[in-house]
Structure formats: C-alpha cells, structure tokens
C-alpha cells in the first residue's frame, strides 16, 4: 500500500505544479516585454521531473523487491518454470536498472545548471516535457508491474469477477473519498456527547479536505515567495508599466499601417463626410456644454460665431479638442477620440461658423479672422460647401 499511496500523493503534487505552471504561462501574454517576470516554467518543469524521478526510484526499488519476492514464491510453488522465471526476472531487472540509470543521468543533466539558471528556451522546455512524459509512463508501468508481481491484480480479478469491467461505482468513489463509515456502524464512532439531545459522531475528517487544505497552504506560501522573496512575478506598478509599454508598441505598429495619423500641424479641413462623422460625435459628446447646434450653453462658449477664445483655425480647434483647456473647463479628449475623430469634430465645429443657430450665447473671446492669419481660397471654398451640407 505504501508505494501506492506515495504514487498518489506524488501525482497530485505533479498535477498541481503542472496546472500552476500552465496557468502562469497562460497569464503571461507577452513574452517580448515581460520575459523578466514570466514564470520560470523550465524551473518548475525541472522540479517536476526531479520529483517524478524520486518516485521512479522508490517504485523501482519496490519493484525490485517484489520481483525477488515473486521469484521466491514461484520457486516454492513450482520448480518447472524455474529457469524461465529466473531468466525473465533477471532480464527485467536489467532493463529496469538500465532505465533507472538513464533517468538519473538525464535528471543530472538538467539539475547540473541549477534551477534558477535554466534558460528560458523552448527546446529545453520540450525536452523536459518529454522527460516528464516518459517518467509518467514509467511510473504507470512500474505500478502495473508491482500490481502484477505482488499478485494484487490476480486477487482483485478473483474477487471482482462478477463486476462488469467498465462499471464506474460513483457512490463507492464518493464514499471512499470521504472515508464514510456505514450508518449501521455509527454506534462505534459515537463520541457519547449529547447536548440538548444533539449527539456527535467522530467521523474522520475527509481525506480530500485535509489534502486540499494542505495544498492551499502550499499555494499561499508559493504565492508569497514568488511575489515578495523571489520577486519572480510583477507587483502591480510593474505590471502596469509592462501593460503600457506593450500597448505603446502595439499602437505604434498599428498606426504605421494607418494613413490617418494626423496631428495639430498636419490637420486639414475635411469634406462633407468628415463633417457628418464629426457631427455625430459632437451630438453625443459635446452638446452638454456647447449646445446641440454649437450655440453655446451655460458651460461652454458659442462655437457658431466668429469669436474665439483660443483662435478659430482648423489647427487651433483641433488643438483645443485634443489637449483641452483644463483651467477653463474644456477637458482633453485625446484619450477618448482618435486623431482622425478629433479632425472630424474639428471640421464640424469649423464649419459651424456663421450658421446663426437660435438662442446663441453672446460672443466670448476675440474676433478671429482667418483671412488675416492664413488666407487660403481652397479652404474657404470647401467651407462653403460644408456649410450648405449642414443646412440641409
């Protein structure tokens, strides 16, 4: 029973470590930037491989003694197959020990560099996966053989003949998981307590409960270790910096492929389509302060007259929207809208000039004459076309 139990606990542990490492890899979305903090998967895998190796050793030893035991038993039972059995077991033992030594060497080769020095390389990772896979197969094989040599299989087959092969006994599994006592035997585990007629049994604490509790404590220790002792995982500010850096790279890559990378120096007045898009954005974002037709309201100034607090060229309007005028209550919209969208809104606002909406707010700022600043017949022409578009 002992090796079986060991096998069980080892495989639970392995499964958890594997799960942990895969979770960590899944969470690690960007190898490029966060490689400093990516969980050192290879270390975890190497640790797994090492642990499994220990199990292989234990099982190997057990197997060796069971073979000897089997051999002895057979010798007593019959002398006919004596030679055959001996040859078989010797042969098997040879295979067994050669495999053990192979694994030992393999493990040594990975251990040699020290767990923290294992480089984060895919090749090593795959090698480790293969090693672990092989170890799992060997463990499975060994337990099968141990069961064969100890005669457990034979015994079980004899007792369970009546059962169907693929019958899964869920209730039985559940009962075993919880180590349930049958209700008929309850008297034997009665504590004898009686509080206002409430009796108490003394059932054992379910084994999975204890195992789960132990695992959660292990998790907590690994968690604290990772973040605060090994510093192998990013704390929140580092995590933030990583996310921002990644986003910047992605954004730059995207913008390279886009033609709409306008800024306040390159922005030009857009045509009717741009104005229509700008109008839609204006209607959902700007009307609260500037009125539904840009006539101004108690908060924002009139945008439809010729007076401007911060100048009225298309570049100026673009700039006002993009950076805002915090101290006067105009917020910066550069995190809300793309440059292209800001150009659209600016074009719409630019085209509002002279639309004379009802209930317009009194002028604020200075009379702004664009002709004086930058006269361009082309833009005026465009603007006239746009004004007509709005009036429609």
């Amino acid at each position, binding site marked *: 029973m002992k090796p079986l139990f060991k096998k069980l606990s080892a495989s639970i542990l392995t499964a958890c470590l594997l799960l942990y490492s895969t979770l960590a890899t899944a969470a690690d979305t960007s190898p490029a930037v966060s490689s400093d903090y990516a969980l050192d998967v290879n270390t975890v895998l190497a640790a797994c491989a090492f642990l499994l190796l220990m199990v292989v050793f234990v099982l190997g030893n057990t197997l060796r003694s069971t073979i000897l035991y089997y051999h002895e038993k057979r010798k007593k039972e019959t002398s006919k197959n004596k030679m055959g059995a001996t040859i078989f077991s010797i042969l098997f033992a040879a295979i067994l020990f050669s495999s053990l030594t192979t694994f030992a060497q393999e493990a040594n080769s990975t251990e040699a560099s020290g767990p923290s020095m294992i480089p984060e390389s895919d090749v090593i990772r795959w090698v480790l996966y293969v090693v672990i896979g092989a170890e799992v197969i060997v463990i499975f094989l060994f337990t099968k053989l141990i069961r064969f040599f100890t005669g457990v299989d034979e015994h079980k087959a004899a007792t369970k003949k009546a059962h169907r092969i693929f019958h899964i006994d869920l209730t039985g599994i559940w009962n075993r998981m919880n180590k349930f006592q049958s209700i008929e035997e309850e008297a034997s585990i009665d504590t004898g307590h009686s509080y206002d007629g409430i009796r108490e049994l003394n059932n054992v604490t379910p084994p999975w409960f204890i195992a789960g*509790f132990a695992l959660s404590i292990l998790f907590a220790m690994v968690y604290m270790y990772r973040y605060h002792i090994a510093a192998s995982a990013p704390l929140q500010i580092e995590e*933030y910096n990583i996310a921002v850096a990644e986003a910047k790279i992605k954004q730059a890559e995207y913008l390279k492929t886009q033609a709409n990378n306008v800024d306040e120096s390159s922005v030009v007045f857009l045509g009717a389509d741009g104005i229509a898009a700008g109008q839609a954005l204006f209607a959902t974002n700007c009307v609260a302060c500037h009125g539904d037709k840009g006539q101004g309201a108690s908060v924002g100034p009139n945008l439809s007259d010729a007076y401007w607090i911060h100048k009225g060229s298309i570049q100026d309007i673009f700039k006002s929207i993009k950076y805002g005028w915090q101290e006067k209550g105009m917020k910066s919209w550069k995190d809300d809208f793309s440059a292209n969208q800001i150009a659209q809104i600016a074009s719409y606002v630019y085209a509002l000039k002279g639309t004379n909406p009802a209930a317009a707010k009194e002028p604020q700022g200075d009379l702004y004459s664009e002709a004086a600043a930058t006269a361009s017949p082309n833009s005026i022409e465009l603007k006239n076309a746009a004004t007509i578009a709005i009036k429609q």
Partner: protein
Amino acid sequence: MEVQKFYYDNRIPKLFAIACVFWGAIGMLVGVLAAFQLAFPVLNFGIEYTTFGRIRPIHTNAVIFAFVGNGIFTAVYYALPRLLKTPMWSTVLSKIHFWGWQFIIVAAAITLAMGYTTAKEYAELEWPLDIAITLIWVVFGLNMFGTILTRRERHLYVAIWFFIASWVTVAMLHIVNSFEMPVSFMKSYSWYAGVQDALVQWWYGHNAVAFFLTTPYLGIMYYFLPKAAGRPIYSYKLSIVHFWSLIFLYIWAGPHHLLYTALPDWAQSLGTAFSVMLLLPSWGGMLNGLFTLRGAWDKVREDPVLKFFVVAVTAYGMSTFEGPLLSLKNVNAISHYSDWTVAHVHIGALGWNGFLTFGMLYWLIPKMFDTKLYSKKLAATHFWIGTLGIILYAIPMYWAAFRTYFMLSSFTPEGQLQYQFIDAVQTAVPFYVLRAIGGTIYLLGVLVMVYNLMKTAKQGTFLATEAAEAPALEKIYVTPEKAHWHSYFERKPILLLVLSLVVVGIGGLVEMVPTFLIKSNVPTISNVKPYTPLELQGRDVYISEGCYNCHSQMIRPFRYEVARYGEYSKAGEFVYDHPFQWGSKRTGPDLARIGGKYPDSWHFNHMLEPVSMAPGSIMPAYPWLFEKSIDIASTKSKIHAMRKLGVPYPHHYEAIADDDLRNQADAIAANLKKEKIDIKSDKQIIALIAYLQRVGKDIKADKRSTSQN
C-alpha cells in the same frame, strides 16, 4: 447530586424572532427600492432622505444588524440555555439587550436617512450610536457569560464556541474600527486616514461578514440542523479543525478588498494568500452540515425546514468558494468595483443567512407555540419563490459585471478607450431591472413566510416557559481516561474566550502595525496639502450624501483606468483623508481626479440635473444642496478636530478659517456668475464644488511640472 428544576424562557427568543422578521422585511423592502432606483432614477423622489446614497446604507445596516443580528440573538437566547441546561443568566439584561438593540436600529434608520454617517461601510453609524452598540454588546456578553458560568453542562457544544468567538471578535472589530474624533453631536472624523483607514475599515468590513454573518450562523446551523434532521453531527474532529482554522485565517483576508489599490503590495498579497487558505476551513462547516444529513435525505424531500437548510449550507459553500476566487489578483481586477461583488454578497446574504434564518423560524415558531407549522405547502412555495429570487438576482449581476468590464477595459487599435463610462452604465441598466425583480420575488417569499408563521402562532398556544431539570455540576471534575484533548478547552469558557481573541488578534496586528508604523508603506508627497475650510465642508457634504456608495476615489494601476481617469492613485495622496473615500463599487465613474476636469458650472448643472450634463446618467439630482446653507459655525471645531488627528493646520488657524472659507466661496460664486448662474455663496453646492474641484489635484499639479519625464 440532587436534580434541580428550572425553566427555559421563550419570551425573549420570541421577541427577537419577531424583530428579525419585521426588520428583515423592511430591510429587504429598502433594498428593493434601492435596486429599482438604479434603473429608474426618478424613484429617488428628489428628496434627500430617499436618495440612493442614503437608502443603500439603510438597506445594508438593516439586513446585517437588524435582520441577521436579531436572527443571531433569537438563536442564542433559545439554544444557549438548552445547550447549557440553565435559563439565561439575567432576564433584566435580556430585556435591556432586546430593547436597546431595537432602539439602535430605529436610531440608525433615522440618522442615516438624515445624512449622519461616518462613510465607513457597514459601520456608518455616528459616534453616539457606536457607543450605544458597544454598551449593548457588553450587556449581551455579560448575559451570555453569566449563563455559561452558571451552566449545568460541563462541556460547551461547538455552537457555543462559535457564539463566543463571534462575540469577542465583533467587539474587537467594532471598537477598533469605530475609533473616531467627535466634532459635535452626530459628527466625527475617523481616527485613521487614507491607506490606514482603508486597511482598518476592510479588516472590519470583511470580518463583519465573517464574525457577524458567518460564524454565529454556523452556530445556528450546528444547533438547528441536527435538531431538525434528528441526526448526530457528522464529525466532532472536523468541528475542531474548521473552528480554529476558520477564525484564525478569516481575520487576515481583509486586504483582498483593496487589491490593486494604494495599499502596500505585501499587505495585498497577504490578503490573497490567506483568502485562498480560507476555502477549506469554510467548507469544513458546509461538509459537517451536509454530512450530518447522511441518512436523512429522504426527510429533506419532505421537510421544508431541511430544504431551507440544505440550500443555505450549499449557498455558503458556493460563496466561500467564490470568495477565494475573487481574491486572486486577475479575477479581482474584473470583479472589484463591479456588480460581481454585489452578486457575491447576495448569494451569501440571501442564500446562507436568509435561508438559514427561514429554516430556523419554520422550526422554532411551531416549537414555541406548541403546534405544527400552519402550512407545509406554503413553506415549500416560499422555498421555491426564494430560490428563484436568488437566481434572478445573481445571474443578471454576473452578466452585467462581465459586460461592463469588457466595455470599460477595451481600447481601439489606435489606443483610445472604446467606450465612455456612460455606455457601460447604459448597458447595465436592463440588468439592474432584472435584479430588482429578483429581489422583489425574494421579498414576496418572505411575506408568504410571515403569513404562514402568523397563522401558526394563532393556531397554537405560546409556551412562555418550558420546564427542565438537571443536576448541578460537581465541583471537582475527573477527566475520563479517553477524553479528547480538545475537551479541556470546552470546559474552560474563559480560556476559550481568551484563546479566540488571541487567535483572531494575530492577523490584524501583523497587517496593521507595520502599515501604521513603517513610513515607507505610505510615502509622503510634499504637494499634498490639507483641505481648505470650504473644501472640508464640501467633503462633509460628499460624505453625508453617501457619494462613496457609487463613486470610488481610487484609480487602480491599469492602462484602461489611467486612460479614463488619470494617473493612478498613490498612498501619499490620502494622508489627510479622515475618513478615506475609496469606495467599493463604481455605479458611477471614479472621482479620484475629478478636480479641474470640468468647470464649476458643469458641476453646478450636473448636481441640479445630472442628465443635462451627462445624458443617460442614472445619478439622482440633489436640489436641496442649492437651498441648504453651509454649517459655517462648525468650521472651527472641524479644523480643531482635524488638527488633533494630525492634520497640519497652522496654530490659531481656526480664527481665520471662516474668512478663508468665505473668500473661496465668493470666488466660486463669482466664477459661476460669469456663466450666468446666480447662487448665494453660502449654499452647500458651493462647498461641494470646491471639494470636487480639489480632489486629486495636488498630484496633478506635480505631474504637469514634470510631464516631460
């Protein structure tokens, strides 16, 4: 030893049971109102007393302290004497406890509606009521220990361990968290500021859930479930393991309410680590409850009491699984400030506390009235209605939480936020409607129960007392040879009390002492200055209107939060915030950097008619702020109190504080006048605008000067 005769009193448990049902129905009704307000802002009625910011604390306090509180006392006053074979120690103390507690509840409802609040969640009551709670709690403790010390049963049953641990821990939590500096009658400032206040508050808040909503209810489970099922408790060993591990681990988990905030990283990690370890000890209670029903599952199909218990214990298991899950950083990033948390607490509150209480009452009332339940059918109906209510409540909230998270965190490829906050609000509104319907259905179930219990009481005769007899305890106790080691503690109630206090004390000390004493945990920022008198007055308006119920003031270090709200919050920014205002739920956007974002006139219009400035907003209007005057007379005592708490106002600043206040107020009024808004400078809205324009600005100025970095 001669057998002594004595009587169990049923009058006090009956009173508590009635109070429990009565306040439960009212608390849930207020909750339903609050739920509908989120979908239909018109239901705020434009009156200060019925606005969401004041209604929500009334709801939470009512269901926690009035409904569950009276539920606990019902159980203690019924079960404790029977488990100890002695009547309650003092009838006078019992009566003081009952009426004192009801008085506190009424006073709480009135003062919260009037806007008297400390702004610390589930501890909103002002200092006179805090003192009243402490006194009544001591009365309860005296009565409980008087009973325990005059017992006729040598060993204490597991339910009593839980009652003792709950009592002592709640006392500790309440006293430590309620440390405050009174300014006037019904106004105080929290002793702690900013990060420290947040840590203490959530140490309290989390453990109010633990030691008010959980451990006493485990006591209830341990008494009423085996009674109703007629089965022995499954495992005495498991009781011991999960009792001690639960109370030890629970206390550490508070910081998981503050993940990704300005709380030091190490404290956050402790919160996560201990929350994960808390899972199995919590499940220990569930297992012991469910396994006790082994061999009685045929009864569960028949008996409504057991049906309620099974769902209650299962809901307990579900929410204690969800809790550790929510404490993991990457999950918490989604759930924090969202409706997920709301769903989580309601699985616990409606499922665990609600259903366990209902089961208890369906068992207890017929017992006390010496009759059978009036209608098993109605009880079964209640069971199904209640279950449906919980499901209809929870699922929309989960859904809303995920949808809003994905909206709020998504960027366009160009690097801009894809959605405005208001888009997320609009998305959530239909789910708020569904949730409110779920809550209403649950409340209907409660009303069915009220009818059923009243009919039951009517058809029976009330047993005011029940006779019992038992021998007194021998003076000398000889330990039997095969006694379990733990039985030693079970016959030493005072030792059990002290040990419980030590066990729960450790976690709090380890987390709080370094945060208070080690400077590096809250690095100072030289730009951060105390609030001006007007801003301080405005902050008190903000507190009294309960703005923190919907708005956080804590920008987490996530790209999408920084893009939306501005630079992430730093610990040093909050050193003068008595109390802190980080909030726990964002029904509205974060306000940590609201200062300077909009002009004064925007705030003026927004507070008067939110949809005028933010179309689609579900925020209520605050018309009374435009009529009520600032309580200028209180400025002096407020400045004085703040200085006592360590806020560096210059000496004798009180003398000129009022002048400063008026100057600043006049400037704001003049500024509004420029935008054609006429308002007298002594109105509360002026102070609120001053405060809002200040929030988060200290560090903004700093950023502008170093923006080239």
